[in-house]
């Protein structure tokens, strides 16, 4: 039996907890998909680099001397030592600390010390190159990379989901607030993306304590600034290739485009960069959270009340769930602000983010209890025969709004998880096609 019973929306728990499935995922999902690696603002200048992960592998993301962003395995092609030891920096070349091979930041070998003493005449220095990820592309500042030689373009991969990515990340020039936050979460990465791709259902239970304390209370002001809207407040959209998003709007509408929580001077820019459907989607936005398959979750939200020391503010967030082992995920989190914010505005947006979704936020500690207990309590083969249930689907997709994808006019449903798992199923059930049995481009030398 397949791990995912697509028809019945049941998934065997072994898909999450069996170490062998984890190894297969590294081959079939993470070597074949576009993976987020960095935001362009992290690589402002030529030579800027950050060290990141693709799947469980450490990579270097660097803007080379010609401004092109490249991604390399952070391991010397000679005998494997790390090339970068820092999380971030700027360099025109990488020098390996073992035997001193140096590489330009476009990956080409520059110096092979004592090449004539050590190597035979036949040794071809020009064939020496950092292990480079063949495809690197960016969309709205988000840089992705893909190990698969035959990968489709990023645009094709995002497909109709680019509408939503653009609505969040394309409405202005954003920059990261600082280096990403990182933590080890003892659960499977799919538990996280399952939640972010569209689980509005858990809020009223998981986050009851925060809600009861007033975290979502909008106060009088936001009510004053608009008028009651009859629009369907919530939608879940299942998009191409397993991507998906949940969009929740407050029942308010305005005369002119209004982006609650963002400083008003940005509103014109937002409006001009977006199409009217995207603008409409962001009106009175409470929260939009989704996932770019496989493991880059995105979220924009308004934080109306996270402390009397701050003001209602919107924030934009991306988090990535790196698969370290079947029950271990390295979670990386970024917060974004539009360029040009004042220090106060920036801190307001950061506070909104941190107090919602940071490691000390009001939501995460409760979410982690759910996610980590699903790991610790499903550890044996006995439990792996049981299933997870994603049968929530009370209505079918409609067209009450002119947004792309299968748009379900409902707030709480599991259609996006079904869509995500279908994609996962499609990739996992297909045996890898190339000869060496693991689907890896033969760019060793």
């Amino acid at each position, binding site marked *: 039996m397949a791990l995912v019973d697509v028809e019945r929306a049941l998934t065997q728990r072994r898909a999450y907890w069996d170490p062998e499935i984890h190894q297969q995922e590294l081959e079939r999902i993470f070597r074949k998909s576009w993976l987020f690696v960095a935001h362009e603002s992290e690589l402002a200048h030529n030579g800027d680099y950050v060290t990141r992960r693709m799947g469980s592998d450490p990579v270097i993301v660097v803007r080379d001397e010609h401004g092109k962003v490249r991604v390399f395995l952070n391991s010397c092609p000679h005998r494997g030592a790390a090339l*970068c*030891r*820092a*999380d*971030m*920096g*700027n*360099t025109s070349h990488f020098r390996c600390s073992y035997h001193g091979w140096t590489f330009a930041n476009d990956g080409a070998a520059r110096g092979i010390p004592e090449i004539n003493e050590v190597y035979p005449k036949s040794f071809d220095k020009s064939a020496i190159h950092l292990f480079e990820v063949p495809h690197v592309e960016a969309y709205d500042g988000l840089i992705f990379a893909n190990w698969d030689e035959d990968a489709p373009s990023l645009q094709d991969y995002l497909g109709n989901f680019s509408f939503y990515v653009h609505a969040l990340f394309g409405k202005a020039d954003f920059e990261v*607030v*600082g*280096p*990403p*936050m*990182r*933590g*080890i*979460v003892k659960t499977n990465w799919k538990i996280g993306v399952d939640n972010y791709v569209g689980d509005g259902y858990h809020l009223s*239970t*998981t986050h*009851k*304590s*925060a809600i*009861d*304390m007033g*975290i979502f209370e909008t106060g009088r002001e936001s009510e004053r600034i608009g008028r009651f809207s009859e629009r369907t407040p919530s939608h879940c959209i299942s998009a191409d290739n397993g991507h998906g998003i949940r969009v929740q709007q407050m029942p308010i509408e305005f005369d002119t485009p209004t982006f609650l929580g963002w400083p008003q001077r940005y509103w014109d820019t937002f409006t001009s960069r977006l199409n009217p459907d995207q603008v409409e989607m962001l009106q009175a936005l409470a929260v939009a959270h989704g996932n770019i398959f496989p493991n880059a979750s995105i979220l924009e939200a308004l934080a109306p009340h*996270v*402390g*009397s*020391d*701050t003001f209602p503010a919107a924030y934009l967030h991306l988090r990535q769930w790196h698969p370290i082992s079947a029950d271990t995920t*390295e*979670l990386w989190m970024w917060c974004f602000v539009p360029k040009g914010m004042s*220090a106060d505005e*920036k*801190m307001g947006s*950061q*506070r909104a983010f*941190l*107090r919602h979704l*940071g*490691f*000390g*936020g*009001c939501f*995460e*500690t*409760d*979410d*982690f*209890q*759910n996610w980590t207990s699903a790991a*610790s309590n499903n550890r044996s083969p006995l439990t792996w025969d049981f299933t997870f249930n994603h049968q929530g689907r009370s209505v079918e997709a409609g067209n009450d709004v002119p947004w792309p994808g299968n748009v379900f006019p409902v707030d709480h449903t599991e259609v996006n998880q079904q869509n995500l798992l279908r994609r996962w199923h499609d990739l996992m059930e297909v045996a890898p096609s190339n000869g060496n049995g693991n689907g890896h481009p033969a760019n060793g030398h």
Partner: protein
Amino acid sequence: MATTIATEHTSVIVGTQDKPLCDFETHWGVTQFLTREAELLDGWRYREWAEMITDDFNYGIPVPVTRDDPGRPQYGDETYLVEETKASLDLWVRRYDNDVFEFAWGENPLQRTRRYLSNIRVREGDKAGEYEVRTNEILAFTRQSDPTILTTCLRVDTLRRDGESWRVARRRVYLDQNIHHLTHLRLVF
């Protein structure tokens, strides 16, 4: 004489670190105060603890990062894992009220926490009446039947005289680990 890298590195997060250590009387008062404060925090007694901080109390855990430039601080600039003030901590304090606590899945049952304060260094602060206190701290965190997680850090506090006693005006926590095993950072170190 060659300048050492190390000096540059540490100075950036250090502020008053090279002022002389204070006299014994002050040290004794401060350590007793901090010991009692830790005892309340160990017991999640936030409501009583809130009496020990100033109204302008600010709490921050900067994001740790490894930069290739050793001359810059190995923590994000104005980027935090946790950033709170006395006002916002109200949302932490109230989480332990009976009616809320029942649904505070991440806190209930209460974890066991234990703070170990070592190498406490008390120095006069930049403003009169303020003292800067550096502590090497270990926080032990134990959830349900999980193994204890030990988290090490440098804690830098600003304390202010309050009559016979003290109040904490500012706390910065410089975690040693870049990638946190203690992801439940909704706590005061």
